């Protein structure tokens, strides 16, 4: 599965595309091949994307997770036989490990088809070639995981093996007699190896006949036994029998290989279908594991959902013993989300992006309900935009954001989704706001979608964009020891209302920045000074404002 043109690098990182890919990665080699070629649906593919997600959700409701996991284990252990099929198709004679692997393929396909049989619109992976191959290879099955070129494949095998065994025994006997004679002559119990050492001191009468010296030394001789006529004749007969056996074995292998060759096209289709099933079942498990639902895929540029979750964050919070609060959002065209620090604005952007991403790949989405359009680009700007090329390391944060914005706007896309996380936060607020407003206006003009998280006041109103707010702190937690970061975060999580709601009127965004700074242990005198400065500024602003008639 490749993000291709759908995600820019920053979006892939922010939306944790790698995590998603890992979650839906298939188990086996065939699945990986199909998975590697997966591409996102683009605007115009709405019906196909919707069908894909609906099919996964239907299967998720039907199939038992334990059975899918068991099959995944089987698929993981099923070797890739496509090279063997290709070799057989080219006329090669396969070897026994190839037949073992083909037998494993037959088993895996049979299990997959059995699992998916309950599912009405499932494709059948098996085919006539695989059925024929399974029947042909069955005599070679040994236990659960073995193969042997059994005599049952061909009567000639048994005959050739008997002849080989007889010839081997005759040779062993002839050689054994010879070895025994030499051992006796040397006064030894036995000679067990081809080469042996004799001490000169033990040879008052010299070496017995038929022993050849390989190496001489002052005190010993390295010797080997020369085969006599009987043993040589027996060896010759054994070699002939071995050659005959090799011929019969190769004939059987060639016959089995021909079955593979004749059914190569169908077997390749089976492998692809098995890969497709593996990919599909991994997606089903993803939907089951994370309680995903089929989105309504529409032709509009929108991302609307209830109870949406950004799954990687949900997992991390769960690991930390905390609860993820699902959010709801209705994004049509452009919108701005404001709210306190640590209130979940970035998570809102990521949730939006993940739902759009899942929908684009025809996957069920992590939301109770969703209505999503297809985008051909999802771009991420602002926080989390890392330096790209060599030169970018020399740029300021703002300059880098501008470069990335330029690239995003210049991409020849029909329908982008722009996710802007505190874009232009590192420049002057007036000009930053003006730029953000202009960007949102441009996105709206193109009929695309953008969601901007910002602390700047009045952006939504100025850009004519929808405005959402994160509710923020219900109350400021008290009694947290300075430096107890974990305690502070837990207290913050308890006190924070992460709900995202449409903003009422043109309220200025509140950041709860000073309360957070205090909670996170910043020196109280610094926070007090900041509060005093803020108060003075507000008083001055009130005095400067013209009196209301």
């Amino acid at each position, binding site marked *: 599965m490749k993000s291709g043109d759908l995600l820019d690098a920053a979006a892939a990182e922010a939306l944790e595309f790698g995590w998603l890919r890992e979650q839906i990665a298939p188990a086996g080699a065939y699945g990986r091949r199909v998975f590697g070629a997966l591409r996102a649906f683009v605007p115009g593919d709405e019906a196909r994307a919707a069908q894909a997600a609906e099919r996964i959700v239907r299967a998720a409701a039907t199939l038992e997770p334990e059975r899918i996991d068991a099959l995944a284990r089987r698929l993981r*252990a099923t070797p890739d036989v496509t090279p063997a099929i290709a070799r057989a198709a080219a006329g090669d004679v396969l*070897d*026994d*490990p190839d037949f*073992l692997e083909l037998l494993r393929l037959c088993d895996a396909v049979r299990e997959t088809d059995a699992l998916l049989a309950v599912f009405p619109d499932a494709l059948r992976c098996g085919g006539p070639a695989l059925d024929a191959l399974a029947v042909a290879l069955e005599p070679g099955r*040994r*236990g659960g*995981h*073995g*193969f*042997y*070129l059994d005599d049952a494949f061909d009567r000639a095998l048994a005959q050739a*093996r008997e002849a*080989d*065994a007889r010839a*081997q025994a005759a040779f062993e006997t002839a050689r054994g007699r010879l070895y025994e004679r030499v051992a006796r002559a040397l006064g*030894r*119990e*036995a*000679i*067990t*190896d*081809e*080469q*042996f*050492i*004799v*001490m000169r001191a033990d040879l008052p009468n010299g070496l017995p006949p038929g022993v050849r010296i390989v*190496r001489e*030394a002052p*005190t*010993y001789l*390295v010797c080997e036994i020369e085969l006599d006529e009987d043993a040589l004749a027996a060896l010759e007969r054994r070699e002939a029998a*071995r050659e005959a*056996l*090799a011929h019969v*074995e*190769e004939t059987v292998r060639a016959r089995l290989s021909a079955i593979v060759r004749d059914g190569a096209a169908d077997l390749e289709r089976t492998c692809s279908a098995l890969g497709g099933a593996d990919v599909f079942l991994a997606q089903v498990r993803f939907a089951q594991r994370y309680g995903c639902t089929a989105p309504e895929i529409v032709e509009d540029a929108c991302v609307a959902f209830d109870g949406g979750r950004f799954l990687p964050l949900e997992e991390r919070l769960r690991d930390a013993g905390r609860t993820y609060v699902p959010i709801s959002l209705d994004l049509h065209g452009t919108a701005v989300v404001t709210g306190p620090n640590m209130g979940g604005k970035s998570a809102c952007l990521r949730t939006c992006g993940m739902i759009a991403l899942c929908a684009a790949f025809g996957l069920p989405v992590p939301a109770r309900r969703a209505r999503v359009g297809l985008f051909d680009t999802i771009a991420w700007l602002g926080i989390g935009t890392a330096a790209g090329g060599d030169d970018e390391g020399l740029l300021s944060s703002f300059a880098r954001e501008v470069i990335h914005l330029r690239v995003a706007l210049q991409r020849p896309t029909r329908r982008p989704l722009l996710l802007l996380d505190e874009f232009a936060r590192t420049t002057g607020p007036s000009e930053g706001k003006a730029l953000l407003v202009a960007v949102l206006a441009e996105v709206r003009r193109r009929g695309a979608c953008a969601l901007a998280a910002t602390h700047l006041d009045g952006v939504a109103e100025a850009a004519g964009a929808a405005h959402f707010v994160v509710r923020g702190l219900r109350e400021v937690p008290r009694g947290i020891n300075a430096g107890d970061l974990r305690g502070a975060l837990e207290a913050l999580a308890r006190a924070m209302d992460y709900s995202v709601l449409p903003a009422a009127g043109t309220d200025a965004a509140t950041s709860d920045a000073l309360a957070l700074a205090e909670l996170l242990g910043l020196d109280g005198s610094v926070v007090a000074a900041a509060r005093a400065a803020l108060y003075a500024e507000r008083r001055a602003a009130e005095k400067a404002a013209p009196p209301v008639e």
Partner: protein
Amino acid sequence: MHVGTRLLELIRLRGARTVFVVGTGKNAGKTVVARAILGAAREASLQPGICSIGRDGESEDVIDGRAKPRYLLAPGTLAATARGALPRTPAVEILDRTAIGTSVGEIFICRSRGFAAFEIVGPPAASGVREVVQALRAQGAGLVIVDGAVDRVAAVAVEDGAIIIAVGVHGRESFDEVVLAGRALAAKLMLPVYDPRQPVVHVRGALLPEIALALAAEDPERQIVVEDPTRVAAGGRTFLGLLERARLRTARPLSVAALTVNAVGRERAYDPQEMLQCLAAATGLPAFDVFAAAAA
């Protein structure tokens, strides 16, 4: 005398179900010793299984290209070897796969059905050897013979394995060097287990000579304990020197059953009887020469 039978007796006396044949270097005669034990096990109706650490039993030495002995396995013998090393004729019975990869393919557990020449290619790592040994046992092997490298046997051999040390002359400049190499390897593999009642310092991972000496200098009476004998990163003269100056001990002792000699090398050869006697005296181990059918 049938050396294989004598070796098998020593192995069985120790209650071992796995035997590791390790050498002082190349051409120490490991494969010949393994073959002798294999033959004896077969005669004793003890279903034998053979495997290797790395690559062995090939018809030519892959490093210097000279002729090396192969395993000619009798029908019914279990073996673990890589896909690329399986004999094509006579066909072998493939019993299981291991998912352990080597440079010549995955390792299969198989059974010879006719007399077949095998090249035994094993896993490169100790964890893989353990898995292969278990897979051979699962197929009914009564004795598993591992043709192995000394630095990789320890993790597996401590469980219920015996070790045979094969001493060769390859790469040694003199007879004394040959004896010293054999003595040092035997001393290392027979490192005694530590006494928990006495002062002790445990060393995790490899014990370098300089660390051993520094620890010994701090407290000469203290035992320096390694996890297993192969963790001492020294051999030959260096190891023997350390042994004199430091109380080296092991947490997991190995069981060395015997020593074998191969007095004839490609570059040099020594008197087999003298080598056998000297090594038996230097190590205190039962010593055998498979080639000369001799014992000391």
